[in-house]
């Protein structure tokens, strides 16, 4: 699975993208966030508070409760602030 990070999530993790192979118990985006938080101190800082995060699966916004269902690309980021 390809992960993309933006804004302060990217800065906290230290990279803008990475490939991961989460265990089977990781079923939803929220599960993924919890699992990612254990990977490094940077990940822990980025993913400590899921309420501050938003997500997209295969380039569509989704709630964190959404099942991953074989998603190829998952992006994690703060609420958007364009315009």
């Amino acid at each position, binding site marked *: 699975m390809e992960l*993309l990070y*933006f*804004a*302060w999530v990217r800065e906290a993790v230290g990279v803008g993208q990475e490939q991961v192979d989460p265990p089977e118990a990781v079923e939803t985006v929220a599960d993924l966030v919890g699992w990612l938080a254990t990977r490094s101190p940077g990940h822990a800082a980025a993913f400590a508070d899921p309420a501050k995060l938003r997500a*997209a699966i295969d*380039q*569509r*916004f989704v709630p964190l409760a959404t099942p991953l269902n074989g998603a190829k690309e998952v*992006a994690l*980021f*703060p*609420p*958007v*602030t*364009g*315009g």
Partner: protein
Amino acid sequence: MIRVSIDPAPIELALELAALEERGAGGVASFTGVVRGGDGITALELEHYPGMTEDALCTLAEAAMDRWNLLGVTVLHRVGRMAVGERIVFIGTAAAHRREALEACAYLIDRLKTDAPFWKREWRGDAASWVEARASDEAAAAKW
């Protein structure tokens, strides 16, 4: 006709408005977002999600074309670093009558704020801080 662009280059307001006028509409409405100064801000930086951003803006423009009787929609968003006073975003709509052009323009900027993956960072000299989303933007988008 839809024109969507995400570009680090400056937005050429006169050219964009003239192109909308050439669609043969009776009315052209537009919104221009400009980097606000004050509070020590020296520059603004825009990050986006390449690929998804283009899709999100095209989807919004198509939704506006479906909902109002429009002859043209232009949605331009700059990315990268901008100085105070520079244009960040331009929305233009062309329609036979003013109400459709004005309503569609308001819809597009309200929804762009919540539906497109952009992130703003404010610079004050060498110090940078990410801008937090505002609940009022969510409320403005939801009313459509």
